């Protein structure tokens, strides 16, 4: 529980001034609500004010309403650094580089899904590998994996795992430029090469959800995004770059640690190691990060391809009849070069989003033509009991918050406390009673990921809606969950 004397900027924005900690270059701003602010952990305050001390930071260090303790940056941390005198920090991106969300729409309604739910769950669980020691269904050699690193989702299109439409509706069209496989260690390659098309573990999941008409907040925008019928079935996927990205982050923390020692730089937190953007080390990390980000886009796309095959088989329908199309794919652990107006002058910045989603508003050329009037889709994952939220980006986010918003519900309870609160099988039974079928390779893990271990997704979504950094479009409720 935090007892900070915030400067209250508005109902939902709480500022920590530079006088709070020696070395702060800019104030930190916590985006929250009167309901959420008292629950902010002191560690989050310490971490976001450490971020505010980093060289080249511009305007503010932000923490989103779903913010909680991370490594280096808090989860929910957003900070932008000058390309000339700023830094890059792996702790501002996370070990799971380009962890993100994919949302798919379908032509199906819940009524059509219902009779085959058990078969569907079993087939999806069999087809999409999850958990410790799982291997992907696509076997890649080193040359192919290099192409994955360089081309991202385009590799999937070239090899029959993605449609042109999929590519159009992935952030950055599924490819971060500047990826250089030479900046990636052999260890990272051997950790990741067999894992493409796997969900992973922890809070990663594949979920079948339903869009009930009473939970559509903006019908027009929902229709633009492809939510166009009552009780429509949608599919949410949450995962990232798997062992490949984890190893790149581990490798570069070591590299940056060495850099810090050699240059006699001050260390506040070893998870917040950074290197100047114009240093060899900084540039190499950005290239390696791009490789991992591209692999994560491929990973999610391969899972989509597997899901399409399962739906075709289970429902005996064609791809066209099923209409499984990508609404959008967002990265929520990444750093991107973007332009913003700082003190009346346009500046190129490296925006770190660690557990935060890009939230570009209308008219941005970076988002697909079809969404340019309404802003990009923002996909917010909740706990496996609460489902997801679909929002859209806004001009307020673009102009004042480095085009960023929240990414999820935000954890409030440790894993062992969650396991002491309820048993996994009891959580599974309760979910079944509430109409949610669940399958996992690790039953006690259900308690660790239960709804009570997370903040209420509606509370955090309401906070960003009130601030205006993204606007509510729809809420989806789960009917089936595969937990990694």
């Amino acid at each position: 529980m935090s007892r900070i004397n915030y400067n209250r900027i508005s109902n939902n924005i709480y500022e920590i001034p530079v006088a709070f900690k020696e070395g702060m270059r800019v104030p930190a701003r916590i985006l929250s609500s009167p309901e959420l602010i008292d629950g902010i952990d002191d560690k989050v305050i310490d971490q976001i004010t450490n971020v505010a001390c980093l060289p080249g930071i511009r305007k503010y260090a932000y923490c989103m309403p779903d913010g909680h303790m991370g490594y280096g940056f808090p989860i929910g941390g957003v900070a932008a650094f000058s390309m000339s005198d700023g830094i890059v920090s792996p702790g501002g991106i996370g070990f799971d580089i380009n962890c993100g969300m994919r949302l798919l729409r379908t032509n199906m309604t819940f009524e059509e899904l219902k009779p085959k739910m058990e078969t569907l769950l079993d087939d999806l669980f069999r087809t999409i590998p999850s958990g410790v020691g799982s291997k992907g269904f696509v076997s890649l050699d080193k040359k192919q994996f290099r192409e994955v690193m360089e081309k991202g989702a385009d590799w999937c299109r070239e090899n029959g795992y993605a449609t042109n439409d999929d590519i159009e509706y992935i952030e950055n069209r599924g490819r971060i430029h500047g990826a250089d496989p030479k900046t990636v260690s052999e260890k990272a390659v051997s950790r990741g090469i067999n894992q493409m098309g796997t969900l992973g573990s922890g809070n990663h999941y594949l979920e079948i959800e339903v869009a009930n008409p009473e939970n559509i907040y903006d019908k027009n925008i929902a229709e633009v995004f492809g939510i166009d019928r009552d009780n429509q079935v949608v599919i949410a996927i949450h995962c990232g770059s798997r062992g490949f990205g984890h190893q790149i982050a581990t490798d570069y923390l070591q590299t940056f640690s060495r850099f810090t020692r050699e240059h006699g730089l001050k260390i506040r937190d070893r998870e917040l190691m950074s290197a100047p953007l114009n240093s060899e080390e900084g540039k190499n990390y950005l290239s390696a990060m791009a490789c991992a980000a591209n692999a994560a886009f491929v990973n999610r796309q391969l899972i989509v391809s597997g899901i399409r095959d399962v739906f075709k088989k289970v429902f005996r329908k064609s791809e066209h009849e099923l209409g499984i199309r990508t609404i959008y794919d967002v990265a929520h652990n990444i750093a991107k070069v973007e332009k913003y107006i700082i003190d009346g002058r346009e500046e190129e910045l490296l925006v770190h989003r660690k557990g935060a989603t890009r939230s570009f508003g209308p008219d941005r050329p970076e988002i697909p033509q079809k969404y340019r009037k309404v802003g990009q889709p923002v996909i917010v994952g909740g706990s496996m009991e609460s489902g997801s939220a679909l929002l859209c980006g806004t001009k307020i986010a673009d102009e004042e918050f480095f085009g960023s918003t929240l990414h999820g519900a935000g954890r409030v309870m440790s894993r062992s406390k969650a396991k002491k609160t309820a048993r996994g099988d009891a959580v599974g039974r309760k979910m079944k009673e509430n109409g949610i079928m669940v399958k996992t390779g690790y039953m006690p893990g259900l308690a660790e990921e239960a709804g009570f271990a997370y903040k209420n997704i509606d509370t955090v979504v309401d906070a960003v809606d009130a601030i205006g950094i993204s606007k509510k479009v729809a809420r989806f409720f789960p009917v089936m969950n595969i937990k990694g």
Partner: protein
Amino acid sequence: MPYEIIDENGSGDTGLKITAPTLAKLFEEAAIGVTSIMSETGSFREKEVISVDIKSASLEDLLIDWLSEVVYLKDARNFLPVRAEISRLDDKGYHLKGVLHGEKIDRKRHPVKVDIKAVTYYNLRLRKKGNDWIGEVVFDL
């Protein structure tokens, strides 16, 4: 129990607290603690031996790098250790040599729990207290 699983409050993550009479023993137990977070150590047999040779910048780095090697082998070789033997642990030159005994993960025989993404420096502690060495390390899950 030479190691216990500890919680990192406010996060979804888990740590290990290891108490051992020697530094080498602490490192050995910590490696098996990693296996215990991801699976049941009792289900593993000593069917394969992997040699490890690591040099680091400090003793704390050496612990992180050693455990990171176990995490790496889990993905790259699908291998988890059930016993570790350290033959050399130079606490001045920060050089470790040892072997890991274990086997490949077989989902039919090994109950899997939660995956470890990385070993972190967060709240890392390594100190001598009385006759014991005590280490605490947190993992990103």
